């Protein structure tokens, strides 16, 4: 199903610049309903609050990493179906495989372009 432009998206990253970049690209792509979280724990709490249709998360974060948040999401019956796109500087093959095993919906390595983000969203919401 194509992505709904009104869908609520959660951007999880400890760096404010990165959150702003992702939010800006999403806005240009037509997704204006975007919320932010600074780490995996905050992200998980917001997701458990309900209403989100998509998550874009970094990997390396304090308190709770992106991969731990992903595992927690997939283990939670109420939110386990939410697509999670990992956008990270962790570009080692083992990271990618770990993310796939944890149930990632797709994976982007930093630095990335708006086209790459759009392409991945189109793949997640065909």
């Amino acid at each position, binding site marked *: 199903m194509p992505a709904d432009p009104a869908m609520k998206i959660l951007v999880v990253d400890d760096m404010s*610049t990165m959150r*702003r970049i992702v939010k800006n690209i999403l806005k240009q792509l037509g997704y204006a309903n975007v919320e932010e979280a600074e780490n995996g724990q905050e992200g998980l709490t917001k997701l458990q609050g309900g209403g989100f249709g998509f998550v874009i998360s970094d990997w390396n974060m304090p308190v709770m990493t992106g991969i731990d948040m992903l595992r927690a999401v997939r283990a939670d019956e109420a939110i386990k179906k939410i697509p999670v796109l990992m956008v990270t500087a962790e570009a080692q093959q083992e990271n990618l495989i770990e993310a796939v095993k944890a149930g990632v919906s797709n994976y982007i*390595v930093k630095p990335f372009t708006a086209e790459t983000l759009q392409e991945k969203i189109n793949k997640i919401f065909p």
Partner: protein
Amino acid sequence: MADTNGHLYAELGDLARYLDTTLRKLDDAGAPLTTMSAQLPQAATHLEGLTKLTEEGTHEVMRLTEELQDSHAIVLGQLRKALMAVDNNENTPCVACLLRESQQLVAQEDKQLIGSRDRLAGTLTKVAETLTKGQTGGCVACTLTQSIHSLSQDDKRLIEIMTALSFQDLVAQRVKKLTTIVHDVERKLLELVVVFGLKHENATPEIKTDATDMLKQLKATNETAMKQNLVDDILGKFGFN
């Protein structure tokens, strides 16, 4: 017996001199070690300051870019309205008003995109003048379409500027790893100062610390980091389209 005692005293004397020399050398080494360990916190502070500076600079560029994007969105909306009005042969002075407003908005934009801005502002002025004189037609619609295309191209460049700013995130992550290493070196150096370097290199096996991990990660980032196309190839093997 006397020979043996003499030899023993001589050996003990050599040993005492050796110990004395060693202690003096350790004293000499102690001062620079202390200075270095005192400078390392400053180095860590400078590194953290670097992250803050790049973050502030990046946010300022982002703020200006977002202002340009917002302004472009308004101009694009007005141009599209004007184009629709021209296509429908609606009231031309009103179209001219919209164009003038757009021209003013473009003219107010930041000087960074001056070339593109001036071309667009010039075109909009010409269109507005033509419309004010009551001349309408396909030519005006064409020019409006070109202006819309030109603005859309600028919007793509603005998104590229935004994404290029992700360098700050990558820099900050590496600086964070470097700061961890500096803190670890500082701790080890302080230990050396305390024990005058008795535990050194081969004396103890390598202890796994945060810094060791960070060094490995930094090395790995340079040597084995994958590009997006390789990531996509691997994802493909896992059944991702």
